[in-house]
């Protein structure tokens, strides 16, 4: 069976005036459909960079990333946007809900970038909000009228509304107290039980422990319990070095 996420030899190198920053080193990572995987690592370990590549917001410097069988490196910018619209649901640490929109409008927003007609958008948004157990009375409220836990559930509903292949959650409980965080994790469990594939990135071991599988990232390397892959293909370093020299010319 084709895995939902398949990463092989992913490197990410950033170029700046200070020089090259090699953030991800030969990441191999695989997620099957219906899995709940937690990626845990300390601050600066490359979690966010990995998250951005997983979410098709960034492209790797080297390596292969297949999402539901699609080779992401071969996609144009518009095609990547379409992948994000249909295949990926994001849940951010700071919720990133739009304050000008109501709860329902926030959840409907991803569908505005698809061909979904408006009446269908509303129906699907309501369905998604029910899935996260948000009270109907809140649907017309502005998001700043909600508690932190409610806002995060709205964010999860927004991530669900386009029925994505994966849900990517970046520190979803980072801004919540432990009780509210536990409620949010319960929501993730319900989604997992419903068959959703979830990749959750966190620095909190307790949160990570709730996943089916835990993967550690440290210094840009994934630890699956084996030795880290720390050989950098020479061609990657040569290409990055050439770009650096051209930039400074």
């Amino acid at each position, binding site marked *: 069976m084709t895995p939902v996420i398949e990463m092989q030899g992913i490197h990410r190198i950033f170029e700046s005036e200070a020089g090259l920053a090699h953030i991800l080193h030969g990441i191999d990572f695989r997620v099957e459909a219906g899995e709940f995987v937690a990626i845990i690592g300390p601050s600066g370990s490359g979690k966010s960079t990995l998250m951005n590549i997983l*979410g098709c917001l960034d492209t790797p410097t080297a390596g292969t990333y297949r999402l539901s069988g699609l080779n992401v490196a071969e996609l144009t910018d518009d095609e990547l946007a379409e992948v994000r619209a249909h295949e990926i649901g994001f849940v951010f640490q700071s919720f990133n809900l739009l304050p000008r929109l109501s709860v329902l409008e926030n959840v409907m927003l991803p569908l505005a970038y698809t061909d979904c007609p408006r009446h269908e958008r509303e129906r699907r948004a309501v369905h998604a909000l029910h899935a996260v157990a948000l009270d109907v009375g809140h649907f017309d409220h502005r998001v700043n009228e909600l508690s932190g836990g409610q806002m995060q559930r709205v964010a999860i509903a927004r991530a669900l509304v386009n029925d994505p292949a994966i849900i990517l959650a970046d520190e979803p409980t980072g801004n919540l107290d432990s009780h509210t965080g536990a409620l949010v994790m319960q929501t993730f469990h319900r989604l997992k039980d419903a068959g959703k594939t979830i990749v959750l990135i966190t620095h909190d071991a307790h949160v990570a422990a709730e996943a089916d599988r835990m993967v550690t990232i440290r210094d840009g390397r994934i630890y699956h319990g084996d030795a880290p892959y720390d050989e950098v293909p020479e061609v990657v370093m040569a290409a990055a070095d050439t770009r650096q020299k051209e930039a400074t010319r």
Partner: protein
Amino acid sequence: MSIRDLIREALRSLESNRGRSLLTILGIVIGIAAVIAMTSLIGGVRNSLISGLGLNAARTVQISCSYPMDTDDVADIARLMPEYEALEGSAYGYTQAQGSNCTVDANIRGADSAYLEMTGEVKLAEGRMFTSAEEQAAARVIILDKSGVQAFFGTPDAQVVGKSIRLGSHDYQIVGVDEKMPASSTGTENVYISVYTPLQTCLDDFSMGYPYLSTVTGLAREGTDMDAIVETTMQQVAKVMGIDEENIADNVYVYSMKSTVDTMSGFMNSFSLIMGAVAGISLLVGGIGIMNMMLTNVTERIREIGVRRALGATRRDITLQFLMESAVVCVAGGILGTVIGYLLSWGLSAIASALGLLGSMGMTTPGATATLTPQISPEAIAAAVGLSIAIGLIFGWYPARRAAKLDPVECLRSL
């Protein structure tokens, strides 16, 4: 994103920053208001000019001669010149009469219906023009103006068609009332009125034995070369009046109203150009203000841009979103500017009328009340809205593209 979604998002954005949006569109409002006020006033001035000169002003020719011309001379010229749709003469007379409570000085204008219709000199408020039978029979029928109605019957709105008044030594039946009510010489016992009679009636009763015409006016057919007809008319008048070739220039005067109309049009076009330049500068400033506001919007909403990109918005979606916001803001400004411009044109026209500027510019018929009615056309409104949209798109383009080119990862990192 669909157009409806884009408009909805744009209106939402406007509403969340009402004060800033209103201040930003001031430049657009002023520019559009200036354009609308100018086009309305010029339209009104043009209409007043045409109304004052007569509907057919551009095809009208005035003929005069050192030698007196009578109706037979005019008939001969008309036979020689089929280029004229109508060629008519008029005569002037004068008499005094006793009104209801004043002495009336009556300026008698003898002209047949063809002449009056050609020149647009009479606009009937009620009644009718003279019939051919009345003109041929030199019937004692008149068209009275409103000041005459007031002088003889006490009020300008009296129903007088069919009634008679005494002018000189005869009674004249009123068959029509001209809508003009010139300002009378108030504060005196005398009232000046205009009375229209058939041409022959005026020549018989009021010319004091001088059976010649005061003016001869021709209406050229549509499409006639007015410069050529002026030349030809001079030749034919000389022929009929027996004037030698070398004396034509000194004795025959033929004048086309077209040059007057052209001069006025040229003046209004120049005025339009100047006002257009002023309005254009205002719109340019307004557009720069729009660009500034949109750039601020992009900066303030950088995180929102990142979120939208993460949710599936393409660069094109972001571009269109901000372009639509810019266009909607400008359309709002255009509509507001159109309303203000129209109100401004009414205000300015009231001031112009009160100051008598139209009369001093010769844009009214003699004795007529000088008023200016602004003319706003649907085309002007459509052009104003179209211009507003164009400004929104032109000056919103750079901020929109800047928003679209932002890296979504960097946007999401921003505070």
